[in-house]
């Protein structure tokens, strides 16, 4: 592996910008996928066969096909039917739809594992189904889901590298650019270090959150 400071100083603005793109995509797609997962994951609790089926079909389709195929479907497919979106929007949409399915599965499991007595107790107080869900069940389920969700978020960081294949200049693409221009692997070394650092930061954050949640119990 190459590592030359000369190339790093020369390409620093590009690398920094690419890192910014990676982090922004991660934050936007991460937040949206948690939100989508929360909504889709809560659907089965309404005990409506249509909603439950819709939730399960969505989760099954998006979990059992590769993210890259979904991205290409959006990137090449949508323009063919007249829907034009920027690569950034396409990329964020693709990651959100894909990771939303994984998040939904996490939230669904945690909502199901909340004691049935909580539903019955809250309903007997006259709360509507939605109120029970929002004020009684979800606060507990979300807290239980936290470790799994942060684990999934660290996968979202890795997902962002696929967007290099749909014309977004993020960390993987810029390191590939450095290689194709200069035949030097420094860009790859920097990208490897940055990705691993992001992941370690994410792990640290999730452990901190997990400890906070533990204290409150």
């Amino acid at each position, binding site marked *: *592996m190459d590592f030359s400071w000369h190339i790093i100083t020369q390409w620093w603005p590009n690398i920094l910008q690419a890192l910014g793109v990676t982090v922004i995509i991660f934050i936007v797609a991460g937040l949206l996928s948690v939100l989508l997962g929360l909504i889709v994951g809560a659907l089965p609790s309404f005990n409506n066969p249509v909603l439950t089926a819709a939730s399960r079909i969505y989760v*099954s*389709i998006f*979990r*059992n*096909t*590769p*993210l*890259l*195929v*979904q991205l*290409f*479907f959006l990137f*090449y*497919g949508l323009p*063919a*039917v007249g829907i034009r979106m920027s690569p950034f929007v396409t990329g964020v949409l693709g990651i959100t739809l894909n990771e939303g399915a994984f998040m939904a599965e996490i939230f669904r499991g945690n909502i199901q594992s909340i004691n049935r007595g909580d539903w019955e107790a809250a309903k007997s107080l006259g709360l509507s189904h939605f109120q029970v869900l929002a004020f009684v069940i979800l606060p507990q389920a979300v807290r239980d889901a936290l470790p799994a969700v942060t684990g999934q978020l*660290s996968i979202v*960081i*890795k*997902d*962002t*590298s*696929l967007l*290099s*294949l749909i014309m977004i200049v993020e*960390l*993987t693409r810029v*390191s*590939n650019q450095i*290689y194709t221009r200069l035949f030097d*692997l420094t860009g*790859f070394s920097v*990208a*490897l270090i940055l*990705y*691993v*650092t*992001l*992941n*370690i930061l994410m792990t640290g954050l999730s452990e901190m959150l997990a400890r906070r949640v533990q204290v409150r119990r």
Partner: protein
Amino acid sequence: MAGYDVIFHFLGTGLIEVIRLVPICVVLSLIAGALIGIVQTVRIPVVNQLISVYLVFMRGVPPLLLLLVVFFVAGFESARLSAVFTLSIYHAAYIAEIFRGGIQAIPLGQFEAADTLALRFHRKMIDVIIPQVWRAILPALTGQYIILIKDTALVSAIGVMEILYNARQAMQVVYKPILIYAIVGLLFYILCFSLERLSAYFERHLQTMQGVQ
């Protein structure tokens, strides 16, 4: 419609490539992962730290970047060989974690019982511990292999002619991106969904076999 036979010809070729890639990666990553997982539970001072670095590294690096790096750095004879190596070492890290967790979940008494019988280390592992670990980790293992199958979609980035590579070729001949990528998705869905069912089957039946939970 002349386009369909072209599409099916290309995607069929790609599917065959995936079916050739996956079993090799499954076997290699299983062997490497099992060895690393077992070595980790023994806790050899320096080796253990090296394994930890490897695991943290593999957890943090996107598989696509790893594919590119290995392809450009390692200088394998073919892109396919490079892809097999990369996917195997990447998934071996996760499989090692699964094995380590499985071994650590085995009651200490099993290790001690094997020791009182004066079994050598490899006999203890092969005859006593691993058969029990095996059943407990099968669902997690199949889950990991679903991810492996999906990761094969990435190897087109280094020029291995799997489904996505062929999908792009097909698209040059017949411009039907929605249809082509829907079929590609369906092919992956069939592969992954059958594995998912298998995993669910293991989960249900192995629990009753072990008589726990």
